[in-house]
């Protein structure tokens, strides 16, 4: 799915990562942890091609990220669901339109997608809020909507950047259960978080690999996690 071989990324002359060797196999579940500002979001951007490694090789669905043009990258992103910390919605569209937007971009028939969309919105518990605009939603509702939008195209990979950063513990557990459920459906999951309690809770439900960013390297975390 996603593979890094000796990859590194520098910005402004400063190396954020170097010599990263990592493979995310289909159906695997990963956590990426480390203190705030260490580069978790940057690494996620490398995973979905918003940034490209400045050294080494990164492949996305078997293709060298560096050789993909903008249109090829756009097609690849339709197979990657991304849940951002700040959710990133189009504020002038309703929640329903925002969640369905990836299918519209892919050119799918809206009538055929309607049942799928309704089911997905019910799955994340937002059936009563379909007409609301993103600024009218609570933090938890926004995160669940972002998750629904990330999976509407049934992507093979789901990347989540601090998905529980703005929600209470109960909501974070609900989101985690949704992500675990998606993993059981065969999706590859990578969650960047500094919330160690969330990681511990997840490990009771799913076999997850925990990666830690430390000293510009991405390493497998120890037994404490």
């Amino acid at each position, binding site marked *: 799915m996603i593979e890094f071989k000796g990859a590194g990324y520098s910005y402004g002359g400063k190396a954020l990562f170097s010599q990263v060797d990592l493979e995310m196999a289909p159906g695997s579940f990963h956590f990426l942890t480390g203190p705030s500002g260490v580069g978790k979001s940057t690494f996620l951007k490398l995973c979905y091609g918003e940034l490209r490694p400045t050294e080494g090789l990164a492949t996305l669905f078997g293709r060298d990220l560096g050789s993909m043009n903008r249109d090829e990258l*756009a*097609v690849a992103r*339709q197979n990657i669901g991304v849940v951002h910390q700040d959710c*990133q919605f189009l504020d*002038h*569209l309703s929640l329903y339109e925002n969640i369905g937007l*990836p299918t*519209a*971009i892919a050119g799918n028939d809206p009538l055929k997608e309607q049942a799928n969309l309704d089911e997905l919105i019910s799955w994340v518990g937002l059936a009563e809020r379909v007409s609301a605009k993103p600024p009218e939603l609570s933090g938890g509702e926004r995160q669940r909507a972002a998750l629904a939008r990330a999976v509407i195209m049934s992507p093979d990979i789901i990347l989540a950047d601090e998905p529980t950063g703005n929600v209470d513990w109960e909501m974070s557990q609900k989101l985690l259960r949704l992500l675990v459920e998606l993993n059981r459906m065969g999706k590859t999951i990578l969650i960047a978080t500094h919330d160690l309690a969330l990681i511990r809770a997840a490990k009771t439900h799913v076999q997850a690999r925990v990666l830690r960013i430390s000293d510009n390297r991405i390493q497998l975390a120890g037994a404490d996690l």
Partner: protein
Amino acid sequence: MSILADIAAIFSRDGQSDRVVPKTGYTATLTVFTSGAMAFLTVFALALSLAADRLADRWGEDLAKSVTIRISAPDNQLAAQTSATMKVLETTTGVASARVLSDAEQQELLAPWFGPDVPIADLPIPRLIEIKETDAGFDAAGLRLRLQVEAPGAVLDDHTRWRQPLTLAAERLRLLGMTSIILIAGATAAMITLAANAALAANLQVIRVLRLIGASDSYIARAFVRRFTLRAISGALGGTILGMSAILLLPESTDDKIFLTGLGFQSGQWASPLVLPFLAGVVAFFATRFASNRALRKLS
């Protein structure tokens, strides 16, 4: 990105493609107003150009048909030279008819300058002969040579020296009108490019979100192109209707040779401004497409 796909997207009944761009913002008003004002001005430039065209044709035709011979001679030779000139004209190929103007007709011609009571008989006024040509026309140079011999006081005036500068002036006026239309189209394109750039800059977050969820640059560009093209068409439609109404309200011409009252459209020409909204759409389409593609490349 295919131009045909972009054009198809503009007229697609699925409005989703440009719904991703928020409707609010001063760029919307700017685009509608600019294309409206430019279309209004273009209607006048077009009217000017067409009026100049008609005038050039009219002046050309009227003067081309009229040829005069002016005979200036001492009183005791005037009748003889007039008679000799008429004989020459009778045997000149290409002259359909020739007629000596009467004193009354000459007095009428002079009235605008000297008043109606001018004592024409007491003045040394040249005698005028009006000639009507056949369709084939006559050899002016040959006729001048013959007149030089038979009637040395006769001067053939085929109005070429009047007609040429008038026709030239009318043609320049028409060119000026066409140049104005081109300049207006260029200014419209520049304004719409600026507005599109401003809209793209104001919607960076929208672009980021769209890219995040798999939108290609062509999809994003198409959304902006559709929005701006439709705005330009609607603005230009309003401007064209206002411009045509203003032309319609101009005073009617009573004399078709007076230029300023002849500014307007005649019969089928009224359809010509209706092409302006379409042209505004074409200009907006290419201007926005250019601006979007350039901006999105920079954002990569």
